[in-house]
């Protein structure tokens, strides 16, 4: 449905998009992931024809955006990062204007009524857009993008600035829409991409650094497998045994939950299966494993790792180019890497906390909702 090949966009001497190629199949929901300023919005602006690429091509439904802009634009519904709303108009006037602008062939009234029902803006239909909250403005923008039932929806950070309840609603809406349409969605929130998208492309500094399903990304990103384990043994002895196993990289003790047992997080090399030797070694000493579980790296960690990897790769490239003071700089890099890893650990901890908090929030909201319903 969407074919993007070797897209480059330069702003002055800076490359905002640097040789991006990908295809999106019909009915797929693709997530664009990347830190702020990675080139997500620029890529979307090029796909929709708002900007033109410095080189490379975009084809949608077989039509090229430069040769056949009208045909391409007819197939696209675009919601930019800031919804393009005329604040002086009412929702009704705005949607009618967009309808006329897109030269839709549907009957006007039923088509608009249907869209309003889908995005749930019936209640504000006659109000001035200027007086609407951010969440409603976002929905009106989305309604505008849906007018004309375009085959391709391009949504730039559709949930930015919304409250948790609205975020869930919009995500569910996008999922529903994605059943019939091809959707590209950008975000820097990972849980969102995990929740909504079939496929994820990670962009950093204008380049694609990963492409796959959310699960693939967290699996393939590293050569380390992480286990959590609970052993019935004194902590220090158990730790010695674990560190003695071939392939174990690190072993971090956790707080004791059950008396007489101890918990650890173990990072081991992916190429060596440590489970069997670990079980045998512990059994030999008379200790029992109560629980052993493989932990998938969360998308958050994968994301940060990917970006850091990308960064170090870049730095190494630069090094190869200027072969001066190699040893000194490599030492520096090593130090930097150590620092990065430390930072990463801190960040991961923080993010875990945040994630838990977010989930709590969502749960409370859902509870409230249920309560409300009962009342």
């Amino acid at each position, binding site marked *: 449905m969407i074919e993007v090949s070797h897209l480059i966009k330069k*702003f002055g001497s800076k490359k905002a998009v640097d040789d991006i190629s990908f295809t999106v199949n019909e009915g797929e929901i693709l997530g664009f992931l990347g830190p702020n300023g990675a080139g997500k919005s620029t890529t979307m*602006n090029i796909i*929709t*024809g*708002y*900007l*033109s690429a410095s080189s490379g091509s975009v084809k949608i439904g077989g039509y090229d955006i430069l040769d056949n802009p*009208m045909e391409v*634009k*007819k197939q*696209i519904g*675009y919601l*930019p990062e*800031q919804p*393009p*709303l*005329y*604040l*002086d*108009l009412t929702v009704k*006037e705005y949607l009618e*204007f*967009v309808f*006329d*602008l*897109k*030269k839709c062939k549907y009957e006007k009234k039923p088509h608009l009524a249907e869209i309003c029902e889908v995005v749930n803006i019936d209640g504000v239909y006659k109000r001035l857009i200027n007086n609407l909250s951010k969440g409603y403005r976002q929905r009106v923008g989305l309604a*505008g993008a849906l007018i004309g039932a375009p085959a391709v929806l391009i949504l730039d950070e559709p949930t930015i600035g919304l409250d948790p309840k609205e975020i869930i609603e919009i995500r569910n809406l996008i999922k529903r829409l994605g059943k019939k349409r091809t959707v590209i969605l950008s975000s820097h929130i990972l849980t969102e991409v995990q929740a909504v998208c079939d496929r994820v492309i990670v962009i950093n500094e204008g380049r694609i650094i990963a492409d796959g399903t959310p699960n693939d990304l967290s699996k393939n990103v590293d050569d380390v497998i992480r286990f959590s384990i609970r052993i019935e043994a004194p902590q220090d002895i158990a730790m010695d045994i674990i560190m003695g196993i071939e392939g174990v990289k690190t072993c971090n003790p956790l707080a004791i939950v059950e008396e007489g047992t101890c918990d650890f997080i173990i990072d081991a090399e992916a190429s060596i299966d440590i489970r069997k030797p670990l079980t045998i070694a512990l059994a030999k000493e008379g200790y029992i494993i109560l629980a052993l579980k493989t932990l998938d790296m969360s998308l958050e960690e994968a994301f940060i790792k990917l970006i850091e990897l990308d960064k170090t790769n870049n730095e190494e490239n630069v090094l190869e180019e200027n072969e001066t003071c190699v040893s000194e700089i490599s030492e520096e890099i090593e130090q930097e890497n150590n620092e990065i890893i430390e930072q990463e650990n801190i960040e991961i901890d923080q993010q875990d906390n945040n994630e838990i908090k977010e989930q709590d929030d969502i749960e409370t909201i859902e509870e409230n909702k249920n309560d409300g319903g009962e009342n």
Partner: protein
Amino acid sequence: MGAIFKKEIKTLFLTPIGWVVIALYNCLAGIMFVFTVLNNQTSDVKSFFGSLILIILMSVSVLSMKFFSEERKTKTDQLLLTSPVSLSGIVLGKFFAAMIVYMSALLVSIIYIIIIAILGTPEMGVVFGNYLGLTLVGGALIAVGLFISSLTQSQVISAVLTFSIFIVMLLSGALVDMIKNLIVGMNETLKTIITSIADTFAIYDKFTQFTSGMLDISAIVYYLSMIAIFLFLTVRVLEKRRWS
């Protein structure tokens, strides 16, 4: 084009801008009418129409200041440029909407002609000539204003710049006279070059023909080509922005 035209008309009359322009124009024109016609107890409307030029400059600067600058600032241009509409359709839609507001301001001023007709006999040829001339001058000025508003995101800069350029255009007619008659000893070819450039932008000098009720074909062609050139330049500015 139709959708944009309709929407622009709607916003111009929903927001104060359309009304302010019409009110400003007619208020100042009324004062001029009192001074040039009623005060002199004459039915000669030439000086009245001649005095309208400055008022039109102001009204058009205000009218055209927001057309593209506001779209860019509120990012609604993203909607227009990603919809299946051509750039010329967008520019023409806005141009005709501005023309409608401008012409409704002119239309209200017909009331002065009616007053003269009751009290005396105005020369109808002069009246028609003037209205045609005012429409053409207004069209050319609006095209220039649209072009300038496509260059900047700020409405204030757009209005100030537009007004300044209009004043320069007003003065360039005088510049032509000055160079032709007053400066002696200047290189003849240089003189011709400067005067012809200044003459191109002397947008009001061509208008004097209309005030005396004459239909000057070359002036009509001049105004129509000014409109075409500046609308074309506006389209090019929008097109170029996509590539930079």
